[in-house]
């Protein structure tokens, strides 16, 4: 827990540069943009979970004055608009491959932006209305007559694999899109045969949705002169969106421009192109008029990619002393109606054994489709789910076989001497001190003082429980990133970078990097992102890659700036370049001191420089980082339950996350706080509910989807460790997902502990007051 007093550069808890515009109402979110003469889009969406589209009659709608167009799947196909370019598996070299056991290909089906034959989930787009106002477009949508042949549906994950389940994609014959086995079945079964104890769990890590507070929106402009489409929209990254949009519209990538200013949250939910983004661009091009669409929240609930939704059965084998021997089980990942993203399944199963020394393991992993919204990675994709399973299994084992929960963890946690460690699925954890971090958080959470607090709560009629959970994250993602740095003679440094901030504060923390390397004050550093005419390469923000990759390319580009600067300074001072030094922002050569900006000015003014040093003073670093990072840590959570109401209050929450090297501790703590809230939200209240019979989405607004609020939390005790990561040249580990990854498991461990006197050994999430009350009062 580094107490830092630095006021500049890496390690400074600097206040954010982006704040001023955001606190004065001058932020620039997508819906804040408008174009003269813009038309408005409203999407008519399927009210059915599964239905064949027989006929669409838009005659009446089109007759309304002001309605410019109604487009359906028919026009979509006729115009050659391509399906969404999904990549279902993570392809980073550090992630494990997911081949089917029988050698067959993973099933993939085209995801059209508008349903062409069947609607496969409630909310799937059936028609797009373009009109002179939103209200009019909505009125017109009500006049579109769609004839549906309603089909049986399947939404529940366990149900998808049953023999008699409704089949979402007839082409596949079943809902199972892949059947993968990873680890060693033989060794695992042999280990189980010798086990003294076997702990078991069957659980469903429920579906949730990301809910970035800014609803999605898009504004598209078509330039008839150049034939270019410009789309203003918020996403996980601008460059990927440019290529994906160009692909779907059948355009050259240089004919598409993406503009992304302020983005109101992401968490993975915005990580991939959406049907609506393509359709807005298509409409603008087709009608040669600017068009705009802004989602209403209820529309977000039926159109934003959803998340989690993993059905797990798992077993942990232990010897008589509590040493873990092996682990096995089966994971079913519900991808929703389209074969869009299976990577949460993959990224979970590859670290099923977490950071415990488990010699062997074997898991089956099946991605399935269902009549639900497509899912995709959401804050720490796949890992919170499996960390929940591991940490619950340990508590179950401790309780059932009479071990102390903490001792059991101490006995099996990998020691720092064991690292690097190849886990049974082939993932190689780099380094860290798992024991030290767990001990730190136990102290921070005052584990030893807990029983007194439990007794005190009991005297007040409350049930108090405590839990601990360790975790590891695999940070991979798109491996390539680029930074371009220009030192301007006017005293400013421009840094172009291919990531996008959706609240992470890159304008500040990335400026701190440039400050650290180039010794220029942060307020002179301009971080430039989000316009693909300026930013050509970059992978956006996901999988803990923002700071991790940006720091590498900004560092390398800075080094090149300094190297170039030394050569220029040498020429200016008539010195030997090898003798020039760079200190505190100045080049020292032959007794002269030249600032970075003096040198930049010389580069633009002198005509005696070799070609590669001519103005501007510029450097680019373009790197492909094929190594993964493994942030890890431990959380302790303490809850208090009111047995009369079943309500769960978070009484204390402590964290220690190893971030390797903290660039801006204030921002890191903020990330942790927000991450905890999303994890606790899943543990205690959030759930996307579909009616199991009709497939209807039951949680379609903030009235029925419970969002965490300020009074659901205490102040958090967030700490961090800084053990430099060995797979990163600066030692930095990602810090954005650690708040969430163990939060599901630790919260539920605390809830189950609070209920231990009522015979409760496990509870599926979310631990709502109703569920808790029933557990206490033994009412099913």
């Amino acid at each position, binding site marked *: 827990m580094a107490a830092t007093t630095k006021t500049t550069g890496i390690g400074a808890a600097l206040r*954010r540069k982006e704040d001023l515009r955001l606190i004065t109402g001058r932020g620039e979110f997508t819906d804040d943009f408008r174009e003269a003469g813009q038309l408005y889009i409203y999407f008519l969406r399927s009210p059915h979970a599964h239905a064949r589209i027989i006929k669409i009659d838009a005659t009446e709608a089109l007759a309304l004055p002001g309605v410019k167009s109604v487009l359906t799947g028919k026009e979509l196909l006729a115009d050659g608009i391509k399906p969404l370019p999904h990549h279902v598996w993570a392809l980073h070299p550090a992630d494990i491959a997911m081949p089917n056991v029988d050698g067959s290909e993973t099933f993939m089906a085209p995801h059209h932006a508008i349903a062409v034959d069947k609607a496969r989930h409630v909310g799937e787009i059936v028609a797009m209305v373009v009109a002179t106002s939103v209200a009019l477009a909505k009125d017109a949508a009500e006049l579109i007559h769609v004839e549906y042949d309603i089909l049986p549906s399947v939404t529940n994950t366990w149900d998808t694999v049953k023999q008699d389940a409704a089949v979402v994609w007839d082409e596949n014959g079943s809902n199972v899109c892949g059947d993968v086995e990873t680890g060693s079945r033989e060794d695992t079964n042999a280990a189980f045969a010798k086990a003294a104890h076997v702990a078991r769990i069957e659980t469903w890590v429920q579906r949730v949705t990301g809910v970035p507070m800014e609803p999605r929106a898009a504004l598209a402009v078509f330039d008839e002169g150049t034939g270019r489409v410009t789309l203003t929209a918020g996403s996980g990254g601008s460059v990927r969106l440019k290529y994906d949009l160009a692909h779907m519209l059948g355009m050259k990538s240089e004919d598409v421009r993406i503009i992304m200013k302020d983005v109101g949250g992401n968490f993975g939910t915005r990580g991939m192109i959406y049907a609506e983004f393509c359709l807005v661009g298509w409409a603008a091009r087709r009608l040669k008029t600017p068009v705009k669409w802004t989602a209403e929240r209820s529309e977000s609930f039926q159109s934003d990619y959803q998340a989690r939704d993993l059905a797990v059965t798992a077993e942990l084998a232990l010897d008589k002393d509590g040493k873990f021997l092996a682990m096995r089980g089966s994971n079913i990942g519900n991808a929703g109606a389209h074969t869009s993203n299976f990577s949460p399944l993959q990224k979970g199963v590859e670290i099923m054994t977490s950071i415990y020394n488990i010699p062997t393991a074997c898991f089956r992993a099946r991605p399935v489709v269902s009549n639900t919204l497509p899912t995709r990675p959401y804050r720490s994709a796949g890992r919170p789910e499996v960390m929940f399973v591991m940490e619950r299994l340990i508590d179950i084992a401790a309780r059932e076989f009479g071990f102390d929960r903490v001792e059991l963890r101490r006995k099996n946690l990998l020691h720092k001497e064991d690292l690097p460690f190849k886990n049974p699925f082939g993932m190689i954890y780099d380094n860290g001190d798992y024991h030290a971090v767990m001990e730190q958080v136990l102290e921070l959470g005052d584990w030893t003082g807990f029983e007194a607090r439990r007794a005190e709560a009991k005297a007040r009629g409350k049930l108090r429980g405590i839990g601990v959970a360790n975790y590891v994250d695999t940070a991979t993602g798109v491996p390539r990133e680029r930074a371009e740095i220009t030192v301007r003679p006017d005293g400013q440094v421009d840094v172009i970078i291919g990531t996008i901030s959706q609240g992470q504060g890159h304008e500040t923390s990335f400026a701190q990097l440039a400050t650290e390397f180039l010794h220029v004050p942060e307020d002179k550093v301009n971080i430039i992102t989000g316009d693909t005419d300026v930013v050509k390469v970059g992978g956006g923000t996901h999988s803990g890659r923002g700071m991790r990759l940006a720091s590498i390319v900004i560092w390398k580009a800075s080094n090149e700036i300094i190297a170039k600067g030394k050569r220029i300074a040498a020429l200016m001072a008539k010195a030997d370049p090898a003798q020039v030094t760079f200190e505190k922002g100045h080049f020292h050569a032959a007794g002269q001191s030249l600032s970075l900006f003096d040198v930049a000015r010389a580069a633009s003014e002198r005509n005696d420089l070799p070609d590669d040093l001519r103005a501007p003073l510029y450097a680019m670093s373009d790197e492909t980082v094929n190594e993964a990072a493994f942030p890890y840590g431990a959380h302790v959570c303490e809850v208090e339950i009111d047995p009369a109401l079943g309500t769960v209050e978070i009484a204390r929450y402590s964290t220690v996350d190893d971030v390797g090297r903290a660039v801006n501790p204030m921002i890191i703590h903020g990330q942790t706080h927000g991450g905890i809230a999303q994890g606790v939200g899943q543990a205690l209240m959030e759930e996307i509910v579909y009616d199991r019979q009709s497939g209807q989405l039951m949680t379609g607004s*903030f009235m029925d989807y419970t969002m965490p609020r300020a009074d659901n939390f205490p102040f958090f005790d967030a700490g961090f460790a800084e053990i430099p990561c060995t797979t990163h040249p600066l030692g930095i580990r990602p810090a954005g997902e650690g708040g969430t990854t163990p939060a599901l498991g630790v919260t539920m461990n605390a809830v189950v502990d609070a209920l231990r006197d009522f015979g409760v050994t496990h509870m599926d999430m979310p631990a709502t007051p109703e569920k808790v009350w029933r557990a206490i009062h033994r009412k099913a």
Partner: protein
Amino acid sequence: MPQVTMQVNGRSVSGEVEARTLLVQFLREHLELTGTHVGCDTTQCGCCTVHVDGVGIKSCTMLALACEGANITTIEGLAKGDVLHPMQSAFSEHHGLQCGFCTPGMIMSAIDMVNRKGHALDETTVRKELEGNICRCTGYHNIVKAVQAGAAAMKGA
């Protein structure tokens, strides 16, 4: 179409609106005051909070026509020139915002809270009073700190 006139951030404004036009639509679309945000359609999120005659109101749930003659303050009207309102400064100083989308509503609600509950706000009060404002980024920790600090700073201001 009916005409509506009101004072917004000290300026008299008027416009023609449909009867169904919401105050937030009037602010954002007619006056281009886009600092007031829309985060939901069920009056839950508080992103749209403004002050109507000095009282915190969710502008997504009030018709523009109902504001005839009213005195409205939005996030854009808080700072006096370059001098930020103490609550604005507190949000930045305490890192009470990440993406910033909920922030205008949070700040407007926080000031309303101080107006109603005074300057010495304990944690429980702040948390309960923020019931109508949702933030997805911050886990509320630093928002609560910011509101407490901003409330205290408003006393001196």
